[in-house]
């Protein structure tokens, strides 16, 4: 696997020199809205939409230029300035616009732009609307820093920036204690991952003397001993935190407390996929360590099954989608862990998933919009008549995620399953199983929400959302269906220089594994229909068996965290407080009392009488004499 070619980026010319504007525009938007929102008033949201549209236009322009350029001149480095230099280290801030990052830019600004537009309708009645758009712009700017950085340190700035924006947006309705708690949880769990990032970057600085991608890629081959494995595992820890992979998955389901456009943008399409980006970007490291790469595969496989399991049991529409997000990112991780054969597919699935999952989240938001913000699927039913646009667009997303032939998910997921079989029979079978379970729970979601008879209470009047929300849905639905076919024959070759992997032949006709996948998916849909389509859905959840209850409780992830981490830490901090109060403060208290007493005594010597001052001086002279004589004698 070693010895992949490393393509060095060429220097920026022309429009590429302005790549920083992609970041600067939304950053400026965030600054203006958050800093001077009072003066902007209603222009704030419009400004936010305008900045991201500008970024998108620039991304498209750069993409077109790259398409036109010869293959070896597509990766462009845009040095900006020297951040700081100390000793032998010089840390530069620069951007890298290559085949990989431009796809992310298109996803972030494209899907992000649609979600901005959608939010105009969704958040129309929120009194803190301006602030919401400010945070969204902040997120987009930080996410672009993350993907455009040309070294890990700047990437980390973006990494923390999206974490901050995610925290602010999950807790946006901070008057709800659950939202505030969810935000805190997401932030704290991400710190664990960030620790891995910090250590990985420190190790890189120590090993390579630089954190630039190019230096790391070139130098990786010279790593010795446990370093590739160590750096790889630390990076994976960071990726697990950001991408909600087992064991750092627990925050994502709670993060659904945020407004739905946030769930769509940050917790489905973009931020949570940063971990996949990180692994693919660091392929030079992972290729050197079988241990690290295999761990990535394991993490991905476990997460894809765990997420699917949770998705089967939840009745909250957003949490089903969140479980599904975990699961799909698990697929991407799995692909990224497989190695050169999987990088392009990981990114491929990431892009199609970004479209169809954003589509479904926004669809769920549209349903909630019509149902007075109720998220309980047991209160839905028969909505297809009342929300036709939402239904049809959601259906496109549904077909894409289960991998209906020729939709986008069909292409991207099948490749991953095939690659997984290439890795090992076991992993392949598990990935295949996951596809079947996905089909099952998505069918369940569709049937409980749009099918069957109405179950909502009197006084609820489901209605279709305004055009400002449905138009983005339609655009995303088209992408859900068509994006896969467009990219299938192109993306491997396109990404080849960035990932160092060689393209595989892909065919329109399914392979035997492809046929098997289709069969499993059909089975999943059938089971889903048998269970939820033929009989009435009870309005309250049945107790269910052990498997269902485990899924409903998110596989007891929170309990595990509580027992393994929270309780021990609490016990330790209580012990520390006790030691501090009894032991250290007791000692210090005695000491300070003594010093205070000395100080009061000293004040008495300063009595204000010049005669006693003079006497002190005379005594001082005697003391000087005594010390000198003692020194002479001694």
């Amino acid at each position, binding site marked *: 696997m070693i010895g992949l070619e490393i393509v060095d980026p060429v220097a920026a010319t022309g429009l590429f020199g302005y790549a920083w504007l992609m970041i600067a525009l939304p950053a400026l938007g965030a600054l203006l809205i958050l800093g001077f929102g009072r003066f902007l008033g209603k222009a704030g949201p419009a400004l936010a939409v305008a900045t991201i549209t500008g970024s998108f236009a620039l991304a498209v322009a750069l993409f077109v230029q790259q398409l036109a350029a010869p293959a070896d001149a597509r990766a462009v480095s845009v040095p900006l300035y020297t951040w700081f230099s100390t000793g032998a280290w010089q840390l530069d801030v620069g951007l890298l616009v290559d085949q990989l990052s431009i796809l992310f830019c298109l996803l972030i600004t494209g899907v992000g732009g649609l979600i901005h537009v959608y939010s105009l309708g969704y958040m129309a009645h929120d009194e803190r609307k301006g602030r919401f758009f400010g945070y969204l712009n902040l997120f987009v700017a930080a996410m672009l820093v993350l993907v455009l950085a040309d070294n890990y340190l700047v990437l980390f700035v973006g990494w923390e920036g999206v974490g901050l924006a995610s925290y602010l947006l999950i807790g946006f309705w901070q008057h709800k204690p659950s939202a505030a708690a969810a935000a805190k949880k997401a932030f704290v769990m991400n710190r664990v991952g960030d620790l891995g990032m910090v250590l990985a970057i420190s190790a890189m600085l120590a090993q390579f003397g630089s954190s630039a991608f190019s230096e790391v890629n070139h130098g990786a081959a010279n790593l010795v001993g446990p370093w590739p494995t160590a750096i790889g595992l630390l990076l994976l820890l960071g990726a697990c935190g950001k991408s909600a992979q087992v064991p750092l998955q627990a925050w994502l389901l709670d993060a659904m407390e945020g407004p739905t456009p946030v769930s769509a943008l940050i917790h489905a399409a973009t931020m949570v996929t940063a971990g996949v980006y990180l692994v693919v970007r660091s392929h030079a490291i992972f290729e050197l360590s079988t241990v690290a790469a295999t761990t990535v595969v394991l993490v991905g496989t476990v997460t894809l099954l765990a997420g699917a399991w949770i998705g089967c049991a939840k009745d909250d529409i957003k949490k089903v989608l969140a479980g599904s997000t975990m699961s799909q990112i698990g697929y991407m991780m799995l692909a990224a862990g497989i190695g050169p054969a999987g990088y392009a597919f990981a990114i491929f699935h990431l892009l199609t998933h970004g479209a169809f999952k954003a589509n479904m989240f926004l669809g769920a938001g549209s349903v909630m919009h019509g149902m007075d913000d109720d998220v309980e699927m047991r209160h839905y039913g028969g909505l297809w008549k009342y929300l036709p646009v939402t239904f049809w667009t959601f259906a496109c997303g549904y077909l894409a995620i289960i991998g209906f032939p020729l939709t986008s998910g069909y292409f991207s997921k099948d490749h991953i399953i095939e690659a997984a079989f290439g890795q090992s029979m076991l992993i392949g079978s598990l990935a295949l199983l996951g596809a079947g379970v996905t089909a099952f729970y998505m069918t369940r979601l569709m049937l409980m929400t749009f099918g069957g008879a109405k179950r909502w209470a009197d006084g609820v009047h489901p209605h279709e959302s305004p055009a400002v929300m449905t138009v983005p849905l339609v655009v995303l639905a088209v992408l859900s269906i068509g994006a896969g076919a467009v990219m299938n024959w192109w993306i491997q070759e396109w990404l080849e220089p960035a990932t160092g992997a060689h393209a595989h032949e892909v065919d329109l006709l399914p392979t035997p594994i492809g046929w098997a996948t289709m069969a499993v998916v059909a089975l999943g849909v059938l089971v889903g229909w048998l269970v939820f389509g033929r009989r009435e859905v009870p309005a309250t959840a049945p107790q269910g068996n052990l498997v269902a209850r485990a899924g409903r409780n998110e596989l007891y992830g929170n309990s595990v965290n509580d027992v393994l981490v929270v309780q021990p830490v609490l016990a330790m901090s209580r012990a520390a407080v006790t030691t501090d109060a009894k032991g250290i403060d007791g000692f210090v208290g005695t000491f300070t009392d003594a010093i205070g007493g000395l*100080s009061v005594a000293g004040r008495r010597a*300063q009595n204000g009488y010049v005669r006693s*001052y003079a006497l*002190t001086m005379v005594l001082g002279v005697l003391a000087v004499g005594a010390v000198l004589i003692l*020194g002479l004698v001694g």
Partner: protein
Amino acid sequence: MTVEWRAIAPVLLVLIAAILGILAEAVVPRAQRFFAQVFLTVASIVVAGVLLVTNWRAGLGGPVAMGSMMLDAPTYFMWGALLVFGLISILVFAERELNGGVSAFAASAATVPGSRAEAEASAARLEHTEVFPLALFALGGMMVFPASADLITMFVALEVLSLPLYLMCGMARRRRLLSQEAALKYFLLGAFSSAFFLFGVALLYGYAGSFDLSAIATAVQNPTMGSGVLYAGMGLLAVGLLFKVGVVPFHNWTPDVYMGAPTPVTGFMAICTKLAAVGATLRVFYVALSGERWSWQPLLAVLVVATMVVGAVWGLTQTDIKRTLAYSSIAHAGFIMTAVVGAYAGSPTSPLDSVGSALFYLVVYGLASVGAFAVITMVRNASGEANAIASWSGLGRTSPLLAGIFALFMLSFTGIPLTAGFIGKWAVFAAAWRGGFEWLVIVAVLLSLVAAVFYLRIIVVMFFGEPVDGVVVGRASAFTWLPIAVAAIGVAVLGVFPGPVLDLATAASTFLR
């Protein structure tokens, strides 16, 4: 017999301006007098600074004025520092807006406090501006003091710098009794210490047969008589010098004088006097008595420990902000003197020696000190300055900018990293450590921890207390704001980029003999 006019022009200019100031007091009409004095003072200091820089760049140096002064790199550095700090602290003298249109100095200093004459002078809103020439005389004396090449010149300089200070201390417009009491105490104790100084000079003359520092150094190397006279002379001379530095047990005047003197004068004394006195101490011990290092190092070490203990511990329970800063100045005298005790001469790998680190410390201490006293003039109540720490409560809420700047000065005094104070402490402690006084550094670090309490307490009071009724931040003119701004910027910049000044101090650390 030659006099190097150009080389000593900075000192001469300051002293001539002082004399002109006295004349101006007599001939310039009262209405223009204030402006004339401020102009004369500022202009003379600025021109002296320009002359100083050109002389330094021209490389003038060596013994000057018939060998009575030594123009070497430390002299240049200290003159420069004295001119800068003199300028910014004397600017505060010129503040009149804070006090309702009159200066902070007595309407008629010669009147008896509480007398009719005083009341009439106050009612007439009289202003006397003799404080400006007096400050220039003091500044001139301070410049000569550390540059002296013989002990007689040093003594004359000591008196020239001290006598105007005594007078200036007694010139407060408000709380005149306290001010006059402070002046009298300072005068009496100063005279007392001058006597010791002079006695020490006499004994050293007896020992070496000369007043010249270099001749004394030669005599110490090649003794012609027993060392008893030398030690007695050295001890008594040390008393006179350390009195001015404010080292325990010769520190008693400091709290009373700092509190009683008009606050702008306190700011001037706090740094300029200390600079001159530490400079003279360095010259006496490093030039004349360097051969007796082994006998004066333990002596100074003992006194330094006592100084730091008294400054840090006594300061803890003070309730008056000027008194607190007086104890702070005692503690800082101790910290500076740790470098002096170390007598570290520098090495190629770590060139920052005792002299360089002490000079740098004086600069950073001076910045925070001038700024802090200027801030103190601005916090007022109906009867003038509100000096009780309790009345500073809640200042962080009512005027966050001023309180933030004051907090910056306090943090620098404490030695928190990213302020200049940290670099200064690191420099002097490193010099003492390399000079072989590791134990002294450990004691000093522990005591700076104790001293941190009273600086941080002020910050806590300002930012976490409830505002006190009747305490306001006065509207000051640029005469107060400019020094505060210079000090705050200096403290912040030297905390992050100490390099240039540190290099300059390191380069300016070799005394000529």
